[in-house]
């Protein structure tokens, strides 16, 4: 089993009364009122410290992702974060989860930037291609929900063709036309870095991943208990395509808080957990959907559960007890956490576990504590899980000798 340290980079100074004053943490939360760039300087640098610490503590991957115009994740460009991490980390793979392909014009930009990251990091990049949430894609970036998915699929096709092709080619797409496709640089990993697809549980995405041999990562953020139905649907899709149940073709995100005891866990993590659910996840349902964003088929299968999830996100009075009981966050002693993660791995059949060890407004020292306990007390208990399976969704061309950045000198 592999473990990845995932940062959302939320804004940690969302006001206590934001639910009374504002409509949504996403899309319309006024940047001028809430975002303070001077504080942001420390916030970004602390968050990067935390990701770098995860590299030192032996996590297999460190994850960054893309969100726009919100206080939930202040990372419109995950590539910028990955670029700084490429110079300051040595072993962890850089899991960019990822670039919302339809937002880049032309999408060949993604092939270029990801190749840059792969080359700078010495072949450590994992290339994630999400469609992107409705908030990000259609509300903040004005993409047309009726054609977003088609544009996304075409963009992914273009990027992969650019990486795989030995020759320059012309691309006459519906959404992108390029006379000369010949991107520089090329990635170290040949023909291209592993492709991971973050998804929210749509029917077609899982099947598309299985057919193309992409890793499917279910980013529910509501914990493994709620994820069972969606992951069952994914493995059914895998069966329809006729490929194996290799757990490494699946990823899952789980919020975790490790402490010396279960009681200590509540003391350490409840404020941050409640901050995440009550503030970071305060997303207005008006931006949580858009006509055409989901296919009719997915809507028929999943709309009720999605509406339920959306309603739960809006619940202003969620308690720590509910968060724990529903499994949104696994918190407790190393044994408690390891037991539940074993159950997660067994029930969902997931080989790539992305853990959120920072959430909400968790202070840096708590994040480092959580990370250390997870790495030293939890990871070893689960390491050997799924060791019979080959992980074919993992970088294999990473350079054995990485260039060493020059040390900081002047003016420090």
């Amino acid at each position, binding site marked *: 089993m592999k473990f990845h340290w995932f940062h959302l980079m939320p804004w940690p100074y969302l006001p206590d009364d934001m639910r009374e004053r504002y409509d949504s943490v996403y899309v319309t939360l006024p940047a001028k009122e809430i975002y303070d760039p001077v504080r942001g300087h420390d916030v970004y640098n602390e968050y990067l410290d935390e990701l770098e610490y995860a590299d030192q503590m032996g996590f297999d991957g460190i994850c960054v992702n893309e969100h726009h115009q919100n206080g939930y994740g202040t990372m419109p460009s995950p590539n910028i974060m990955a670029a700084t991490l490429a110079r300051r980390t040595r072993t962890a793979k850089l899991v960019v989860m990822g670039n919302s392909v339809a937002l880049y014009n032309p999408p060949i930009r993604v092939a270029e930037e990801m190749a840059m990251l792969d080359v700078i990091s010495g072949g450590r990049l994992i290339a994630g291609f999400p469609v992107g949430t409705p908030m990000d894609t*259609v*509300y903040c970036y*004005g993409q*047309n*929900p*009726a*054609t977003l998915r088609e544009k996304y699929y075409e963009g992914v096709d273009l990027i992969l063709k650019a990486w795989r092709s030995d020759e320059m080619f012309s691309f006459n797409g*519906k959404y992108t036309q390029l006379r000369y496709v010949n991107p520089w640089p090329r990635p170290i990993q040949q023909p291209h870095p592993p492709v991971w697809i973050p998804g929210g549980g749509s029917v077609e995405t899982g099947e598309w991943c299985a057919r193309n041999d992409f890793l499917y990562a279910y980013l529910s953020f509501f914990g493994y208990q709620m994820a069972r139905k969606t992951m069952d649907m994914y493995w059914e899709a895998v069966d329809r395509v006729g490929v194996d149940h290799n757990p490494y073709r699946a990823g899952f995100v789980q919020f975790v808080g490790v402490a010396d005891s279960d009681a200590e866990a509540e003391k350490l993590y409840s404020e941050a957990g409640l901050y995440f659910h009550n503030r970071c996840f305060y997303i207005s*349902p*008006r*931006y949580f959907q*858009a*006509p*055409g964003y989901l296919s*009719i088929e997915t*809507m*028929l299968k999943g*709309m*009720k559960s999605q*509406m339920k999830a959306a309603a739960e996100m809006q619940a202003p009075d969620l308690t720590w007890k509910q968060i724990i009981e529903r499994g949104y966050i696994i918190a407790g002693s190393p044994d408690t956490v390891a037991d539940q993660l074993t159950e997660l791995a067994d029930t969902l059949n997931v080989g790539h576990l992305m853990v959120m060890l920072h959430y909400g407004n968790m202070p840096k020292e708590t994040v480092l504590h959580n990370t250390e306990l997870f790495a030293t007390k939890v990871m070893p208990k689960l390491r050997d899980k799924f060791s019979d399976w080959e992980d074919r969704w993992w970088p294999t061309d990473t350079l054995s000798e990485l260039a060493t950045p020059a040390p900081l000198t002047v003016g420090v």
Partner: protein
Amino acid sequence: MATATFTDEIVSLPNGRSQVVFRGGAGDPVVYLHGGGGLVLEDPLLGALERTNEVIAPVAPGFIDLADLEEIQDVHELAMHYDDLFEALGLEGVPVVGHSFGGMTGAELAAHYPRRISRLVLIAPVGLWNDSYPVADLFAALPTELPGLLFADTSHPAAQAMIAGGEGEPDIEALMPLMRGLTTLAKFMWPIPDRGLSRRLWRIRVPTLLLWGGDDALVPARYAEDWGAAIAETSTVIVEGAGHIPTVESPEQTLAAITGFLSGVAVS
């Protein structure tokens, strides 16, 4: 008011596509292009029109099957699709009445293929954008906000029916036609319902009636000024106290203005 008696048929187009059309009444043809809610045969306007005319009401592509939109990429191809339909039905120089999204469609058809249309009635059309009074974001509206966006008086029975329909567990199957309709609208209106129509409106030379509910919360009635300034020969009727669907909310004044305009009687 009696409900219109319509029958539906499938019209084959030469490019292999087909188009569902409802027909009712007898006499000189009038084409009706429905708005975002789909073709509602109970709309008093259809009953009024079919008393004097043959009413031809196509169901906009996408509203029955989203696959019908695959070959219709933009408003230009949408106008072309209607030109094909008019050709198949032998319609040349006929009056067209369009509501909201149907108004935009009618205006695009008139601007692209001026000879198809003899008179144009635009009821609260979308298609123009003015920063001073933006069109409301229908797509981001919560279901509970829709009655207030569409009706001036939410105690009107049609608004009340909409409110009642939105209560309780959503019936996903029943919502599908609405979702198809909204997806169609999104294709041609997202994120701002302006596809350059203002640059083409000068091509509309036929008499045009601009009809608006004075309290339209979705597409403010002030847009009548923008349309009026861009089209050569317009009359404007603002129905005070009505919202975005004046044919339902204030049928008497609305229908009189439309039928009067279509029969060539001057309106004011």
